């Protein structure tokens, strides 16, 4: 099914590209502005993430995940020529939440183009934070309602990952809480990731691509950096572990596929 689908997209692109070949090949066929939808499909090492279900990782810890919320921000789209479109910063912060089902980011008024890669941040950069009340706008309100306000740091949790776990030595289900954010002015845990889209995402007045990302929550503790809950189950402000978690989190995203079309379904 999928290869066929990809083939059809390929053919479609081929037709479009060849049909334009007499013109200046800079993409004149795509005009105006459109939306880009980005779906954050939370998973654990290839399995769908279902809150309340358990997953065993490579460190032989079994996690039952009850919460996975994270902030994504500062989206940038790059086309094959290296032109970068930066989404307006004052609208550029989104809280995704598995428990509320709010896992789609919709970018609006994106200039028409053929975009080949996507860059975004995980969390809130210092520049945004230091804009004070003016710069936060409604983000604080939204953060408080989604357990992403970090009140004793007067800031944001970039990641709120909670549940229970067991391991060889921790046999009773024990709460774990991973809250990651910047540590006041002393440690900035905001990180960005850049993903190749694999195919072009086509944006125009009537083309709204859906970028389907998979976020592998298993990577948060069991990525390049190995974090053992057995050693420490509540990690909120750790000079050593929080940056590792931030790096693991920024590396948890992959592009599964891109749907080009009117954006109504995928």
């Amino acid at each position, binding site marked *: 099914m999928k290869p066929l689908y990809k083939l059809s997209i390929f053919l479609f692109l081929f037709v479009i590209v060849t049909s334009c070949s007499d013109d200046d090949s800079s993409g004149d066929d795509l005009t105006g502005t459109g939306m880009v939808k980005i779906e954050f499909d939370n998973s654990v090492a290839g399995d769908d993430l279902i809150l309340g279900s358990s997953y065993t990782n490579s460190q032989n810890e079994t996690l039952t995940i009850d919460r996975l919320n994270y902030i994504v921000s500062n989206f940038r789209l790059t086309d094959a020529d290296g032109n970068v479109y930066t989404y307006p910063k004052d609208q550029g912060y989104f809280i995704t939440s598995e428990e509320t089902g709010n896992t789609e980011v919709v970018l609006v008024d994106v200039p028409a183009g053929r975009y080949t890669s996507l860059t975004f941040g995980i969390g809130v950069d210092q520049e945004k*934070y230091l804009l004070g009340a003016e710069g936060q706008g*409604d983000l604080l*309100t939204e953060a408080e309602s989604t357990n992403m306000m970090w009140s004793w*740091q007067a800031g944001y949790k970039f990641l709120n990952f909670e549940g229970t776990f067991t391991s060889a030595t921790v046999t009773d289900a024990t709460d774990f809480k991973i809250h990651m954010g910047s*540590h006041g002015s*002393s*440690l900035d845990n905001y990180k960005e990731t850049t993903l190749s889209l694999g195919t072009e995402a086509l944006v125009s007045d009537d083309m709204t691509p859906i970028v389907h990302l998979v976020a592998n929550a298993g990577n948060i503790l069991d990525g390049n950096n190995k974090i053992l809950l057995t050693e420490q189950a509540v990690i909120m402000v*750790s000079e050593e572990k929080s940056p590792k978690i931030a790096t693991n989190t920024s590396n948890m995203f992959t592009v599964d596929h891109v749907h080009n079309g009117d954006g109504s379904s995928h």
Partner: protein
Amino acid sequence: MKYLAWAMLLITLVACNEEDGGYIDIEDNERLTVAIPSNFPPMVYQIEENPPTRYGFELGKKLFYDGKLSANGFISCGFCHEQRFSFTHHGHQFSHGIDDKEGTRNTPSIANMAFFSEFAWDGATSHLDLFPIIPITNEVEMGETMTGVLEKLRADSDYQKAFKAAFEDGGVNHENFLKAIAQFMVMMVSYNSKYDKYVRNEDGVALTEEELHGLHIFQQKCASCHTTDLFSDGSFRNNGLPPNPGINDIGRAEVSGSVNDNHKFKVPSLRNVTLTAPYMHDGRFGSLESVLNFYQNGVQDSPTLDPLLKTEEGFGISMNDAEKMALIAFLGTLTDEEFINDERFAEY
């Protein structure tokens, strides 16, 4: 006049000229002037992002003194920050919040906050606007949620009017709420103590011989941390207080997560210090004499003890009794009667 070389921001906000659709008349919401004393370092607060206005300031003051900001409706900001003690909680080692719950830290003064870049004893926020989130949501202080506060304010017609008067968009929202309180705090500049008038050569004010002697000792022994005429460099330091074993507050390390920051707290300003007992982050000392005795005899070594307190003779600051008396006399010149009696900031 040349002595009065205070840089004053005198920009009048002229809002809504021709395009005023007549929704809200904010013409009389004039911009307020923030005092920038000539003997202070530059202001840190980005005043153009949130310029204090008459109604913004009044709204901030109303909020500051309103118990609605707490869960039980009784604990306002002004409950712990009392003007006559330079906005500290006099007589309380730890400040107590809702349901008589006690915190673990002593209420710091909020004078001259516009000139600092880190807030709270541990620097939990680096923007003044966002500071109120900490006490409002702390379960032993005001025990509320930001959203809960806004719901109460939205249901109150006085507040609806006050927000409309203060802000062009008029919304009762987090942004305007935090801006209003910040406007109130930004205006709180304490700069008219006897010391200030002495250094600015105003009104022929002179220090006594003992006060001058104290100033001299201060400059030698205290001013490397209590720098500038703010009397703080805003940094986080471990001054060698033996940790209170019942609490073991690790200070800045709570925020940074770094063991290098264990037991470090923000260097407090010494303005109005005669009024702000008890002293230290945990309010353990009832008098300035005890504070100086501690620096003379009580400083405890630890891996994070500030290097400035380690000398060849040992830990702490060597002082004799006469020097301590002179220092206390000098510190008395930092009391600013105009500030603590300024009706603009008064609850009633």
